[in-house]
Each structure stands twice: as C-alpha cells, then as structure tokens.
C-alpha cells in the first residue's frame, strides 16, 4: 500500500527530502540558542561584560536567522511536497478511473469516488505534511537534547532516559486505546450524518407521515450515542496532558535535587544545571509530538487504503495486441453467450443467447424489469465482456477491436443518460468534436429535438445545467439521441431512450431513422409495444433468456409474454403528456 502511494510523490521527491533536512537544521539552531541565552545571562550579565553580550547577541541573531531560514524553507518545501503529492494522487486516481470498465464503475459508486478524490486525498495531504515536518524533527530534537544532556552529566541524563521510556510506554498505551475509540466515534458519526442526510432528502415523507417526533427521538438517540462514545474517547486523552506535566515536573524536581548535590560536590556548574532543565522540555515535548504523528498515521490509514483501491483497480477490459480499427458493417452475432456481472457467483444474467442480426436491420427488444435487456445490448459495444461464448460485430469478435474504434461505431444511448453542464452544442459535440452546426441541426431534426431547441431563448447556445435539470425528461432523452447520432454509427442502440417522449414524437423519431439512416443497425429497447411494433424483428426477453423472436404479428400470435404486454397496453397507447415542450 505504502509503495503505491509513495510512487506518486514523483517530481516532489526533492522537497520531500529537503523538508526533513530543513527541519533538522531548524532543530539544531533551536538547540544552540538556549546555550547562547544561558551564556548571555551567566557570563555576559553575570560578569557585567557588555562586549560579550554584544558578541554573543550577534551570534544568537545569526543563528536565529539561520533558524528562520530553515524554518521558512522547511515550511515551504513541506507545503510544496504535500500539496504536490496530493495533486499527483488525485491525478493518478482520475487517470485510472478513466480506464475503468463498466464493472469497475459499478463497483465503486460515484459518490464514493468523489469522497476518495477529495476528502481522502486531503487527509493524506495533511498526514504527509505532518510526517515530513514532524517525523524527523521530533526525534532529531529529542536525540540532540539527549546527547547534550549526556555530555553535561551522564548520571543526570539517565533520569531523562528513564522518563522517556516511561512516558513512551504510557503514551503508546493511551494512544492505542484512544485511536480505537476514535475510530468507533467516526463510525457513529457516519450513522448520525446518515440520519441527517436521510431527513433532509426525505423531509416530505417525514412531514407527510407526521413523523417529526419519531425522527427527533431517533436522532437524539444517535446524538446520545456519539456523546457517550466521544466522552469515552476524550477521557482517555484527558489524562495525557496531566501525565505529561507530572513527568516534566518530576524530572525538574529530580534534576534539581541531584543537581544541587552535584553542584555542591563540584561535579556540575550552575549554568549546566540550567541547560539540563531547558532540555527537559525539549525531550519530553518531542516525545509527545512523535505520539501525535503516530496517531495521525493510524487515522489516515483508512483514507490511504481507499485511495490505493482506486489506483490499483485494473480494468478487466483490455485492448487486444493487434486491434482491428475499422468495423466493416453493422451485423451482430451472439454465439452461445452467457454473461454474469460477477462470474462465478449465482446464476448468470444472460443464458444461452444466440442471435444473428443483419447489418441495417431494426430490432426491438421487450421484456419485464430485470429480464436483462440492457445487459444484452451492453455486450455489443463491449461495455462488459461475456462470461462465455462470443459476441461478433461486423463479423469480428468485439474483443479483437480497438475499444475506442468499436465504441465510435457502436453508439449507445444509455438508459441512465446524462447531459453535462455546457451549451446544447457542447453537449451534442460529445458525439463528434468537429461537427459543424449544420450537422448538429440535422441530427437534432432526426431526433425531433430541433423544434424545442429553437424555442429556447438562446437556441443551440442555451446553457444546460449539471445533469440537464433545466430540460424535461423527454427533451433530455431526445438530446441524448441526437448526440449519439452525431457519431454516424454503424450500430445504434437505444436503451429505453424514448420512455419520456410522447408516442407521437416517438413515432416520428423512428420514421426518421427508417428514412435517413436505413443502413444503420438499430437495437431499440422499449417498454411500450408501440415503440417496437414496426421493427423488422422483435426479441422478447424473459429472465435472461430469449423467449421469442419475430415480427409483431408473429409474436402476437405465438408469444404469451408479448401478448400479455400488448394487452396491458391495449390501443398501443401508453402515452404521456410531455408533449407541449
């Protein structure tokens, strides 16, 4: 895990190395200054030596200047290294997400990807900066102070050694416990936030059922839980500062007592005792700092894991060695295809699919929810790979094509379709970056979108909000169809893409398809019989199998499911009123 993360430091290796070095430099300056301060008092002021004071004062200023320099450099390098590291992590994740197959996208939900790219990276950035700046500084400060103490008086320094060991044991014990509690706190926090989230988004349900009091009592319970857990966790921490104080004060008293004896027996100078006491704070504070760094690392582990998961996710769809770049025609063949979203678990979603579709044919697909209509068409543009058998497009296995070339020739209008923030033209040009406005208008006319676009205040330059919220469902679908048409595909797949378009317009779009792109193979998934009635052939799907294939009349005569669906929609009308747009 660490290796994957650290590989992303890349060009920020230099500041990453310089930061701790600068911090050590700052520590050294910091160590020299108390000695100089002591001398100013003892020798300069004590001996009333103005010259000495000026000289030492100047040296101290120079040292302080170096300290400042190291401090600033350390701060700047640290910021650069950690911000850069965060940038690289985000980029590595985002780049990899772009190579994700559909099954990887399914695996990570989009909201979890967003948190991983933002919050988790920020956590790592903070931890990294902390580590760079503190992980070396604290031990360095401690070691130097310890060495200095040993030089002054090995016997007294042993008191520090003892104190450090004692404190280390106590702190690691407390921190370990506290971390565990805090992790539990975070989980409860998630519960609490979830409860708020639910109430905010479902406020209408809460109010409609007059369940305010019920929700409030639920929330109070969750808040109470957090309160208790937090008290437990923080009570652990509450001991830290008093324990620290006890050890520091203990050390001061012990050193003072034994120091007094040594001074009197002439084994120690008074100035030396002062320095020893000054190092006391240095040593113990560094230890404290170190424990903080450890906690920080423990706490950021979860984030690190979540980031590495994204970086290490390997797409299960790979481009072949010697890919075919051109799809010869729009024929499709399914050869004994089995398909499962997670191979090896449970029943496959598609079973024993055999199909032969000629180039230019129009195929309707109908079936209940969960009958695997979408799964079937998703295999054609290789959004997923088959578990068994093969899918051929233009006579070649889809796995032998360059993925991009295949997807440019096989245009899919997804069921859950999305428009992006930008003008209508921007959105259309997803299909073809270089499309002229005339081409865009032409496809919009085919998709019956031209009329309503023209009626919009800024026509084709109308700004679409994120998710396309400022156009109606039916309009959104028509724009998505136009966008897909702009690719001039050999195969066009519409996955329930006209469900919000009224029957009359739906018929118009199909008519346009027939007349304007007769050579394109069309696969149309629909709920309404009227949408597929005049297709060359209609496939009836049921529970992952093909239940029947034939023309409308054939199926009506032979196929039970088709007949049932038809009868539930008698008159063929299952219209909606999204008409006057």
């Amino acid at each position, binding site marked *: 895990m660490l290796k994957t993360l650290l590989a992303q430091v890349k060009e920020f290796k230099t500041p990453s190395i310089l930061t701790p070095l600068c911090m050590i430099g700052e520590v050294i300056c910091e160590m020299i200054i108390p000695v100089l301060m002591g001398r100013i008092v003892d020798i300069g002021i004590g001996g009333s030596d103005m010259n000495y004071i000026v000289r030492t004062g100047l040296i101290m200023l120079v040292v302080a200047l170096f300290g400042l320099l190291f401090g600033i450099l350390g701060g700047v390098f640290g910021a650069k290294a950690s911000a850069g590291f965060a940038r690289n992590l985000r980029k590595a994740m985002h780049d990899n997400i772009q190579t994700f197959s559909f099954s990887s996208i399914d695996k990570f939900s989009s909201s979890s990807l967003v948190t991983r790219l933002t919050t988790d990276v920020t956590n790592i950035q903070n931890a990294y900066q902390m580590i760079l700046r503190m992980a070396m500084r604290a031990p360095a400060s401690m070691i130097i102070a310890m060495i200095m103490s040993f030089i002054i008086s090995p016997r007294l320094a042993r008191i520090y050694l003892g104190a450090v060991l004692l404190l280390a044991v106590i702190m690691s014990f407390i921190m370990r416990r506290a971390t565990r509690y805090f992790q539990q706190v975070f989980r409860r926090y998630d519960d609490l936030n979830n409860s708020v989230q639910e109430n905010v988004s479902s406020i209408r349900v809460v109010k409609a059922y007059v369940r305010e009091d019920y929700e409030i009592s639920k929330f109070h319970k969750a808040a109470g839980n957090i309160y208790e857990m937090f008290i437990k966790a923080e009570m652990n921490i509450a001991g830290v500062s008093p324990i620290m104080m006890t050890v520091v004060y203990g050390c001061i008293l012990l050193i003072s007592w034994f120091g007094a004896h040594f001074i009197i027996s002439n084994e120690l100078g008074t100035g030396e005792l002062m320095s020893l006491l000054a190092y006391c704070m240095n040593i113990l504070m560094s230890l404290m700092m170190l424990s903080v760094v450890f906690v920080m690392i423990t706490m950021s582990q979860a984030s690190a894991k979540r980031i590495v998961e994204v970086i290490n996710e390997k797409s299960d769809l790979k481009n072949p060695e010697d890919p075919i770049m051109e799809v010869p025609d729009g024929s499709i063949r399914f050869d004994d295809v089995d398909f499962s979203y997670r191979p090896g678990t449970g029943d496959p979603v598609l079973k024993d699919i055999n199909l032969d579709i000629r180039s230019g044919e129009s195929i309707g697909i109908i079936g*209940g929810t969960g009958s695997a209509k979408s799964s079937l068409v998703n295999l054609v543009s290789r959004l997923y790979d088959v578990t068994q058998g093969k899918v051929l497009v233009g006579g070649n296995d889809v796995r032998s094509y360059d993925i991009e070339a295949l*997807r440019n020739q096989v245009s899919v209008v997804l069921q859950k379709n999305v428009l992006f923030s930008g003008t209508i033209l921007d959105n259309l040009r997803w299909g073809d970056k270089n499309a002229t406005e005339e081409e865009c208008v032409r496809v919009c006319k085919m998709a019956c979108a031209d009329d309503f676009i023209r009626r919009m205040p800024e026509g084709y330059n109308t700004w679409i909000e994120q998710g396309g919220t400022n156009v109606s469902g039916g309009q959104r679908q028509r724009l998505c169809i136009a966008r897909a048409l702009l690719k001039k595909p050999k195969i066009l797949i519409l996955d329930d893409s006209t469900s919000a378009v009224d029957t009359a317009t739906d018929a118009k779009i199909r008519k346009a398809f027939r007349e304007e792109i007769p050579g394109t193979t069309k696969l149309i998934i629909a709920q309404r019989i009227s949408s597929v009635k005049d297709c060359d052939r209609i496939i009836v799907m049921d529970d992952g199998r093909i239940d029947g294939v034939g023309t409308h009349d054939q199926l009506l005569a032979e196929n039970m499911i088709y007949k049932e669906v038809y009868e539930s929609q008698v008159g063929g009308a299952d219209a909606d009123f999204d008409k006057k747009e």
Partner: protein
Amino acid sequence: MAEDNNKEFKGPGGRRMAGRPRPKVENPGLLLKRVMSYVFKYYGIQMIVVLICIVVSVLANIQGTMFTRTLIDTYITPMIGTPDPDYGPLLGAMGRVACFYGIGIAAAFTQQVIMVHVNQGTLKRLREDLFDHMESLPIKYFDTHSHGDIMSVYTNDIDTLRQMISQSIPQLFNSAITIVSILSMMLVLNIPLTILTLAMVALMLFVTMQVTKRSGKNFIAQQKNIGKLNGFIEETMTGQKVVKVFCHEEESIKTFDELNEELYQSAFKANAFANIIGPVNAQMGNANYVVVALVGALLALNSYAGFTVGGLASFLTFNKSFSMPINQVSMQFNSIIMALAGAERVFKLLDEEPETDEGYVMLVNCEYDENGEIVETDKHTGHWAWKHYHKQSDHSTTYQKLEGDVTFNHVDFGYRDDKMVLHDIVIHAKPGEKVALVGSTGAGKTTITNLINRFYDIQDGKIRYDNINVNKIKKADLRRSLGIVLQDTHLFTGTVRDNIRYGKLDATEEEIVAAAKLANADGFIKRLPQGYDTMLKGDGANLSQGQRQLLAIARAAIADPPVLILDEATSSIDTRTEKIVQDGMDKLMSGRTTFVIAHRLSTIKNSDTILVLEQGRIVERGNHEQLLALKGRYYQLYTGKSDALTA
C-alpha cells in the same frame, strides 16, 4: 505544540467537505458572545471551575519557571564550598514547589475532564437543537437550500465549533492569563524594558498578521478551487458511463488536470504561508530576547533606576516565556475565525422561521353511542372524527365525521408571490372518488397535491377538507389523514419491516405482512436474504426502483388514511408487474378519496374524474369516455394521433 494538537484530533471534520469558500464573518464579537452564552447557559458553573483551574495551573507553571533561579541563587550558591551542607531548607523548598506542582496537575486534570463533558454536552445539545429545529422548518426551506449545505452545518460547522470550544477557548484563556501574569511581573521588574518587549511583540503580531492574511487569502482560493474540482468530479463521476460510451476520457482528463493544477497552486501557497508563521514568530521571539538583553545590560550596568543584574536575569526568563503564549494566540486566531464562520451558519439555521400552524381542528378516534352521536375516545376504533372547539363563539366542542371530501375553490398558487404556477384551480373530490391529474412535466400536478397537505400555503382561494378550511386543521392531524406515495421514493435506514411500519408505528406483524401483500411486495421481500429483517441502507440502494416503489405503497397502505395521493407511484414498475400491482392498488383505493398522478393512461382510465392540466390551468375535465368524446388534448394523447395537434 498546541497548533499541532489541533491538527491531530480533528476528528470527523478532518473530512472537510469541500465546496463553499469560507465567507468573512460579519460580526465576530456578537457571534462569539452567542456561542459563549450557549455554552454558559448549560455549563455556567463548570466553565467557572474550568477558569479557576486554568488560573491555578498557569500560576503553578510560572512558579515552576521562577523556581529554577531561586533554586540556584537562594539554595545552591550559598551552600557551595560549605563543608557540611544542610539540605534541609532545599528539601523544604522543593516540597513546597512539589505541592504547587501537584495542585497544578490536579487543576489541569480537572479542567480536561470538565471540558470533555462541557464540549461534548454542548455539541450534543447543539446538534439536537439543530435537528429539532430543522424538523419544524417548512418544505420551502428545503427547496431553497442545497442539501449539501444543510449537511455541512452538521458536519463541518459543528466540528469547527468543537475545536473552538475544546481547544481554542481554553488555550486563549490560558495564554491570556499567562500573558497577564508575566506582564505584571515584568512591569514590577522594569517598566522601560517591558515597554520595549511590548513594542517587539507588537512588531511580531504585525508580521504574523501579514502572513496570516496571505495564508487566509490562499485558503479561500483553495476552498474555491476544491469546490470547482469537486463540482467537476461530481458531474463526470455520475456521468462516467457516458464518458466511456463516447470515448471522452482524454477531454475529461485535460479539464481535470487544469483544475487539479489550480488547486495545487493555491493549496501550496496557503499551506506554505501557514507553515512559516511558526518559525517567523519563534525567531522574532529570539531577536526580541537579544534586543532586551542588550538594552537591559546597558541599563543594569549603568544601574539605571536601581535595576540590578539579577533583576535583568529574571526579566530575561520572563521575556523568554512571553513569546510562547503570544505565538499560541496568533495560531488560534485563524481557527477561531473559521469556527465563527461555522457558528454563523449554525445560528442561521437555528434562526430560520419554523412552519407555522394556527390550526385548531383536531383529528380524534371516535365511536358512536346508541343515538348515533359521535363520542371521542382514546381507543383505536378505526373511526375518526374532526373535533372543533369553537373558541370565538360559545366555547362548545362539536364533532364531525371524517369522510375525505376535498374541494379546491378557485385556488391560485405560486412558490413565489410574484410568479403564480397554478391558476383558478377548481376540484371537487367526493368521498371515495378517484381523481386523476394528467399533464406534461411542470404542468403543476404535484404542486396541487402538495397544497392539500399544506406543504405550501396558497395565495388565493380556499381548500376544504370535509368542508373545513384546511388552514383551520392542525397540520399534523391534516397530514395524518392523508396517505401519500411520492414521486421520488425515499426509504430509511432500517429493516424492511421498519420501513413499512413507518406508516403506522404500532402496527402488528400481521398488519405489516398484510400491507406488503396488498402492495404485492410480499413476494420479493420474502426472497430477500433476511426477508422482512433485511437491512436497507442508503435510501434502499440495494433494491430496484420498482421494489422501492412497492415498499412505499405498502407504507402508505398500512397508514390506512381516508384520502390517498399517489404521485407517479408505479412509474418505475414495468407494465406487466404493474398489472399485478394494480389489483392491490385498486384494493387500496377502494372506499378512499384518491388523487392519482400518472404517466400511463392505463393507470388513470377508470378514474371518476380526469383533470388535464396545462401550464397551471385545468384545460379539460371529465371521465375517460367524456374526454375521448371531446376529441381534445386527452384524445390526442390517448390515441397517439398527432394530426389534430400539429394544427
């Protein structure tokens, strides 16, 4: 130390939700006062104890700092060279110091323990107050505020407050007391040197402010850039499948890289400036020491105003410990401003006007006495009545049977006063009737149903329920008498059983299963891994859209309300399944006044009245046959013939 401590237990707020730049706080003083009065209201005594504890531990600490000098000057130096030193006085002095230390430690521990409770207790109350208040807010509030922003109040803003109460405020007290005590001792020792020290401190603060300002500016830029990147990621991640289908990966990467680079630049600058505040302060403190030492030595050597060398040594000790609290104050400054920005949003939510309710007509359980008169009862009788208490007239109480008769009398409504979305709506739904609302998206169908249960209040006209103006009915009672299946299905974290029971909290197991069967949900529920005990998470993300709708129908069924509103209740269920559900729906609707909004004409065909809405007006009304005969809008839609329309 203190500042790093802050970073450490940042807790869940470490997960800083990106998005909005932190706005400038309008009135920090007033906000601080409000936060503090909130804390003191519940924890006044505790806070006073904490204050005392801080004073005690600061004094103990200062006393320790001074002890070093006394130790050497008073006890050790005189003993040097003595053949038989007497350690008695030293032991006594150390005993006294140890006692002070002991008291200091006890005070520090007490302070910590109390603060944990004060802090968490305050946050608990604040969270509860926030939530309680939020539940009382009108729907309009949720329409006009982004959910992310509301959430952020509970997470980020509360969390910055947590840090402020638990760390910044005690730290500030601590620093202030330290500064005051050291300052007074310095003043006693030498006034000119104290002034010099203060001048140096002022310079230090000035430089710190400059750096803080730059850092703050870049932190705001960083927040803005995080927001931008966040928005982009959110958009592309939700549309990731479309990105793939259109092979749009490279463009996506290009935009991402640009935004990422901007974020890096601002994050780098913000952190760099923040990082150098510490070293700058520390080294200026050292410079301060040198300057004071030099000037002090000049004064002492010339014996200015009786200033001695010993006095200077002590003064320098104080000077050294003076920089530390100053440094800490400047470090806390940023986090307090951040916390106050959070507090501002917390209080803004708490200050929102709650939903008002002047209704006085109540819904009660009732039974009939031998004369057929309605009598109120506490028992569950399955019969309901409206209870009128006539305040204005004779203070009498009358009862009226709950029937489910709903009328709209020339109702006008707009979400904003200047833009009406419904015009002159007239509807009369008699008890047990089925009224269908059809029309295109945005015609106002859902809005009409939202007026019946008073999610919104109308601008003109009257809505009556059993001939009572809905404004006179207590909102809770009005809503209890209406069952609603909403367009967007929302389920709650909990088991399937809990979710159905939501409609009737005291429902028995049999009632739950019966409701599930009625909605035709029983079948799929039984096939779930743990049946009725299956946990639903994230708004029922583990169920299909259709299954969620079935659960929502079951939830409405169990509530057994006299009036039912079905807003696209079966839109995500395929036509075959819908046919099966239809029986259940018919059963559910029988004997109830029902408002149906539907997409599919098959769902609404058998309604008693069908209202065709267009742009907020009812353009056609009648039953299926009448409307077909009208050969108007409904006819076109039903037959799918567009010839008449194009004309």
